């Protein structure tokens, strides 16, 4: 019963109680579409200040406050908060920055830790009650993050080797028969300069998009089966099962959300490491 309550409140705050058309007194089910990701403005209907923007502002503040509080009054014997902050930062520094980039990775640890924290909390907003939309499922936010990472790894590579040598190392790795370069050079250029930022952006966006869509489907489908489906003998048990599945999938989605934040950070670190490496 409590499962039901939680899930039905979930359906309500998702703001999407099956908006099917009425046909002969019966509602029809309409599966969620990409239109469910468009929110009206909070203050005026067409305003720019929508729910995802509110979430980004909230979460950015949260991360900033968390790290400031965790690093203030740092002691040798850490407090609980300091320990939490050091765990996250230490993990990114040691297991991502230093492992993927090498000893120079220390310089990039703050950026990577910020990136990870920002993406992680914005993704997790997708399963926090009331917020319940991962703001990163709107392509604008991953777009900016991907462009940032792209500019950083290109700038670092160019700064280290100079424009000519950087692109020469990237497009013409040594030890390959010369005719193959005709094929290899454009592919290498394409995959490094165009595909990398594009996949960084699309991976994060559509993972969050698809995950949210699946949750929407189970919640709105469960609501439809419970209340509007003509055959109650089938509808009610399957509807309850559907709500239960939405809860299980919320947990699963939480794992995916953290994993995607980690993947974005790890790939950024690997790209920076590749740009810093002496030989390709």
């Amino acid at each position: 019963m409590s499962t039901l309550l939680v899930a039905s409140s979930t359906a309500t705050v998702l703001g999407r109680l099956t908006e099917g058309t009425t046909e002969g007194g019966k509602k029809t089910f309409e599966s969620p579409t990409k239109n469910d990701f468009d929110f009206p403005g909070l203050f005026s209907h067409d305003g720019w200040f929508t729910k995802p923007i509110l979430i980004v502002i909230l979460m950015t503040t949260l991360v900033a406050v968390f790290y400031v509080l965790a690093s203030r009054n740092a002691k040798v014997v850490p407090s609980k908060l300091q320990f939490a902050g050091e765990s996250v930062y230490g993990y990114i520094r040691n297991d991502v920055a230093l492992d993927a980039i090498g000893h120079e990775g220390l310089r990039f640890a703050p950026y990577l830790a910020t990136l990870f924290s920002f993406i992680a909390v914005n993704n997790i907003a997708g399963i926090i009650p009331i917020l319940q939309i991962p703001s990163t499922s709107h392509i604008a936010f991953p777009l900016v993050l991907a462009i940032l990472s792209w500019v950083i790894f290109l700038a670092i590579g160019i700064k280290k080797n100079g424009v000519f040598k950087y692109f020469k190392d990237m497009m013409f790795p040594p030890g390959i028969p010369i005719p193959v370069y005709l094929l290899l050079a454009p592919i290498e250029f394409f995959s490094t300069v165009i595909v990398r930022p594009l996949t960084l952006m699309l991976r994060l966006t559509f993972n969050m998009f698809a995950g949210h869509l699946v949750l929407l489907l189970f919640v709105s489908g469960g609501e439809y089966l419970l209340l509007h489906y003509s055959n109650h003998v089938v509808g009610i048990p399957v509807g309850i099962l559907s709500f239960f599945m939405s809860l299980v999938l919320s947990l699963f989605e939480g794992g995916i959300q953290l994993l995607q934040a980690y993947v974005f950070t790890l790939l950024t670190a690997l790209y920076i490491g590749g740009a810093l490496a002496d030989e390709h």
Partner: protein
Amino acid sequence: MNGTINGSLNMIGYGLAAIGPGVGIGLIFAAYISGVARQPESRGMLQSIAILGFALAEALAIIGIGLAFALK
């Protein structure tokens, strides 16, 4: 009870397209698990490689779902 299904055929195409990355990701983690089983101390090194391979294979599936929604 005569049910009708509304929606885009794109989604069926996406479902078919997701088979490839699905198999690929399965192979990547199978290799990772057997690698760790043979040599448990190599876990840390293998993990980032496995996640990288997973991310690259998954990109194909993700591009698929992007196109399934974007192309009409």
